[in-house]
């Protein structure tokens, strides 16, 4: 067992976990933060997306012990205009993917603001990359929605950045 500390949504949490426990399981089962969902446990669906020092990662492919003394934000700690626009644009049906979608979108906007290109960015020399629907879809491609609420999700993000 390893004793670690982690800042989760602003408060310091103590965790006593085995080294093989994923960050996802630590959040859900040790800290009771069940907003973060487990879809595949293989990095392929994005439902478990959280922010580690502001960067979006899939928490199922992270070990809790690797994130000792880091700053983790889960959906419970997010306050973003995106949340309201997801509701307004029906960015979900069952809601299972939504916490991951929103954490991912928050991380995506930070990456975009820092000027990161995507696989669909045409001219890499442009200073400002416009977040078109195509760019949003590509940049959100790590988050699957089993209900197929993609149009609502894209519309919500488009509104959220305006």
């Amino acid at each position: 067992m390893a004793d670690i500390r982690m800042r989760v949504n602003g408060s310091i949490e103590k965790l006593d976990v085995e080294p093989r426990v994923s960050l996802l399981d630590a959040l859900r089962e040790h800290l009771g933060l069940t907003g973060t969902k487990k879809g595949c446990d293989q990095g392929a669906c994005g439902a478990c997306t959280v922010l580690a020092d502001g960067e979006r990662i899939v928490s199922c492919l992270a070990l809790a012990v690797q994130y000792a003394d880091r700053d983790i934000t889960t959906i419970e700690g997010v306050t973003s205009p995106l949340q309201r626009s997801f509701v307004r644009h029906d960015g979900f049906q069952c809601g299972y993917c939504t916490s991951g979608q929103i954490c991912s979108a928050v991380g995506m906007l930070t990456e975009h603001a820092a000027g990161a290109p995507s696989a669909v960015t045409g001219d890499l020399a442009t200073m400002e990359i416009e977040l078109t629907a195509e760019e949003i879809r590509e940049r959100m491609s790590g988050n699957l929605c089993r209900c197929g609420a993609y149009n609502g999700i894209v519309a919500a993000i488009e509104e959220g950045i305006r």
Partner: protein
Amino acid sequence: MDFLRPTTWADALAAKAERPEATPIQGGTDVMVEINLDKGRPAALLDLNPVAELRDWSSEDGWLRIGAGVSYTRLIDELGDRLPGLAQASRTVGSPQIRNRGTVAGNLGAASPAGDSHPPLLASDALVEAESVRGSRLIPIGEFYLGVKRNALEPDELIRAVRVPYADGPQYFSKIGTRNAMVIAVCSFAVALHPSRRGVGTGIGSAAPTPRRAPEAEEFLAGELDWDGRTAVPDETARRFGELVARAASPIDDVRGTRDYRVHALAVMARRTLGWAWTEYRGI
């Protein structure tokens, strides 16, 4: 399962020498999938993330030395202009979340024939910098892949960095999958033109037990291209190049595609990437 967390490179090498069976973990995007699937839990994990040296890259004499801890996201942002082929391939790896954590060194450690960084590394004659407490060596990329998920690292060795020469000409990567995000390539291909020495580099992915080059295709094309006049590549030359690339592969039938489809697709990708590269070289 023991969890080893060295904070310096020297400590990491010492730990690997003492526990050669320990599995290194960088981004974890391969290692964690195995752990979660409960496929043979490693006796020990050697976490390289705290080793700050690995997160740096540097450049010297026209070569980039990319630390094993540099993520795909950073490689794309910070080195994309000097390594266009590797950056294009990196942009297709997994998803944004995977690219924030995954690394080229991890791709090399996993040595999957489908790994996307392999074709551009082959096409640009990269070197793998391997190190142990016994010393450091540079492994030419063509000698690094030994078999399906097997590489040339000794049990006590770790990858310190990947060394890639600056692009000296156009480089292109192409990959076939059912969608862009999060699919394992059905097959992939990279081409690099080296006008300074009138050479051509190639790399084939997912179409043999290891990633490999197509040496006959490289030699043929290097001799046919009109390097000085920059005239258009005749269709016949492009077709022959595609054929030679496809012939260098030895693909299998599997759930992602048949042998015949892969052979066909490789020839198409080879012609197409050559078309893009030559158009760029001609400056049109």
